[in-house]
């Protein structure tokens, strides 16, 4: 089961983790990742997305991961709107028979989400002014290490 949701509401990471679908007979590993707003030098963060394309793009990254590793279920929930420091911004879980596939697929989907899902961050500085966040070359390089054919 693969699912992607974009949420305007705060993420309840405990509930998401508890409710993540797994099979008692077949799921041996669930890897989860939560990204949080780092509050260093900012008073708020806001995220904008492209409804429809954002969800499909993340789903494409999940399908790309599923072609590489035997994963059973993958779920991604990404926040949009205004967030405060310390709030969860993205939550991702991967269920698989064994941990190696779950760890790798989790990292792969996050790396591709960063560079290919239409989401844009703005930060509000301590003086109250908003600035768009520039894309990081390091994120692109990190995704590229999975190989050229992996572009979702």
């Amino acid at each position, binding site marked *: 089961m693969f699912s992607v949701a974009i949420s305007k509401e705060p993420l309840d990471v405990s509930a998401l983790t508890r409710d993540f679908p797994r099979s008692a007979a077949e799921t041996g590993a669930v890897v989860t990742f939560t990204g949080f707003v780092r509050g260093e030098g900012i008073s708020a963060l806001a995220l904008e997305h*492209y409804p429809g394309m954002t969800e499909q793009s993340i789903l494409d990254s999940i399908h790309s991961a599923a072609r590489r590793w035997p994963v059973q279920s993958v779920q991604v929930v990404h926040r949009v709107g205004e967030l405060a420091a310390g709030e969860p*911004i*993205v939550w991702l879980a991967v269920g698989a028979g064994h941990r190696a596939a779950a760890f790798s697929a989790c990292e792969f989907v996050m790396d591709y*989400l960063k560079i290919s899902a239409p989401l844009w961050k703005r930060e509000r500085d301590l003086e109250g002014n908003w600035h*768009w966040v520039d894309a990081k070359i390091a994120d692109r390089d990190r995704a590229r290490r999975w190989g050229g054919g992996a572009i979702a």
Partner: protein
Amino acid sequence: MKILFFARLRELLGSDCFEIADADCPADVAALRAMLRLSVNAQLAESLADPNVFCAVNQKVAGEDQTLKSSDEVAFFPPMTGG
């Protein structure tokens, strides 16, 4: 034909979409960029000339030579910064 703009480009445009007459639909993405650059403010025109600014056609990232028709949903946006 509606052209959507997101994030910094939307702010530069001052609106989330720009309309061109269906009859004026350019042949491809490169021609659309060139056409838009003549119609928008200097800052947005400069961004549209930036190869790092993406164009999506029907919600898929498109190359400069992708052909267009007036019913396509076309969008421009800067590099992604989610996650």
